[in-house]
């Protein structure tokens, strides 16, 4: 079997999941210009909510899935409403520090509530691997990819056609003009946080389903930075493309180079990409350049 094809396929699958998590960053950044460093922890909380409902309470998967979205939306709105709304007009560095602090707080809460033990979900999909022509792919990864792509597509449609989606795009474009169009900009901020948290939590659910849950599951969120930087922090299309590029490159590089370096290449490659991108194209492939006529 062709090793390149295998690495490429799993790279695409992982990339699709990265794209969904990247969406969690982009949705919030686009509307509010805040980089949410707690995105990884939103993922982790999402995974734990799913664990709570399926394993601890014995709910079936679909209602538990809905509870994850509801819980994440609630978390996102709570964070915006109780913390970030009061940070309006503060320097960027203060807001960044707040989200980093928030990530530690969420990790701490998770340890208190669910302990730091490793947990895993009940099997959601048939265990047998998926066979696509020459390539065999793990079923959890395959279905995770499918769920991620469907979610990303739904978000894209929502943004393009729904009235709230259009109002959110308007808010991202120009806040003052949006206000004067009768758009409640604050509500849009809250909505953006809710949607960003939903995207991240579903990403966390997928990751948790593949590799289990523990309080530091959120550290994967850091790996998403290269994805959003590559795609441009405010571009949904860029997030998707960035997800695929990073997923594919890290898998292929890891597959070919790991034997020479005692492993770990996979985890380094995204950050090498990050550094190169910041040097060559600091706004990413599709990001908006901040040039304003004064």
């Amino acid at each position, binding site marked *: 079997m062709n090793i390149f094809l295998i690495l490429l396929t799993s790279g695409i699958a992982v990339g699709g999941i990265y794209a969904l998590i990247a969406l969690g960053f982009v949705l919030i950044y686009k509307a509010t210009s805040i980089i949410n460093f707690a995105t990884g922890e939103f993922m982790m909380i999402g995974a734990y909510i799913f664990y709570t409902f399926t394993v601890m309470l014995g709910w079936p998967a679909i209602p538990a899935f809905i509870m994850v979205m509801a819980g994440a939306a609630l978390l996102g709105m709570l964070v915006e409403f109780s913390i970030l709304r009061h940070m309006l007009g503060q320097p960027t560095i203060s807001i960044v520090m707040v989200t980093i602090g928030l990530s530690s707080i969420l990790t701490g809460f998770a340890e208190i509530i669910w302990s730091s033990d490793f947990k895993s979900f009940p099997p959601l999909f048939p265990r047998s691997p998926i066979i696509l022509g020459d390539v065999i792919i793990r079923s959890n990864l395959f279905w995770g990819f499918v769920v991620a792509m469907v979610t990303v597509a739904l978000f894209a449609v929502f943004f393009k056609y*729904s009235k*709230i989606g259009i109002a959110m795009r308007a808010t991202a474009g120009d806040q003052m003009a949006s206000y*004067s169009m009768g*758009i409640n900009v604050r509500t849009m901020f809250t909505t953006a946080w809710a949607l960003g948290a939903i995207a991240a939590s579903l990403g966390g659910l997928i990751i948790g389903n593949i590799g289990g849950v523990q309080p530091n599951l959120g550290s994967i969120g850091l790996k998403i930075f290269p994805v959003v930087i590559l795609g441009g922090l405010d571009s949904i299309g860029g997030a998707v493309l960035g997800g695929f590029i990073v997923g594919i490159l890290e898998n292929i590089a890891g597959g070919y180079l790991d034997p020479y370096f005692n492993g770990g290449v996979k985890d380094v490659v995204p950050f090498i990409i990050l550094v190169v991108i910041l040097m060559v194209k600091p706004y990413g492939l599709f990001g908006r350049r901040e040039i304003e006529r004064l």
Partner: protein
Amino acid sequence: MTLLQADNLNLSFGGLQVLHDISFSVDDGEIFAIIGPNGAGKTSILNCLGGFYLQDHGTIRLDGQDISSLSPDRRAAMGMARTFQNIALFRGMTVLDNIKLGAHSYLQTGLLAAAFYWGSAHREEMRLRAEIEDKIIDFLEIEHIRKQPVSALAYGLQKRVELARALAMRPRVLLMDEPVAGMNAEETEDMARFILDIQEEWGITIIIIEHDIHMVMDISNRVMVVNFGQEITTGTPESVQSHPEVIKAYLGTKQAVAAGNS
């Protein structure tokens, strides 16, 4: 009949008093201009009316209703539209999308329908689009560019799209911040004609800030002159032009005015 009334607006940023007891009332269907030198507080007045600045004290009434502490989006929903000095269009969207956003405030559909674009929201959208296309686009002569992204348009056209978006809100009051700034003579003339037509055909009350003194004097029903955050005088263009304080504060010497008019 008075549509908009401002009483004793005071505004300061830190120790700097920007507006000092500004009072005026605008009649229904009138074109009311606010003029004054740079830094006189004109845009601050507009921002207070629109709800972007909250005055330290003073009241603003729209059709008798106190709107002094309402947020900008609530005021927009009550029929207050605005165009900006630095064009504030939504870049990356087409002309039509921008105009459609103007209708955002008065679309009456529930949250769920609005979120998913079903049923009545969809029908309302369709009806609205037809109405907008027929009327506003036609009126402002931007038919040829409606599918184009706004960022690719010439400056004068962008200003016109911004005006179209404001009209799509079906406002009762339109606040215009320097609508002809940076325009050439021909574009200025077009815009002046549009403003007069908006007043005449649509019955919209217009409050305008402008540096182009000839245009203001040509189209306004009444003019208020401000300087250093204080009202100097308010009246018809003719009476304002001959006011000695105005000539001193704004227009320069008498000779310069005479030269400018000749």
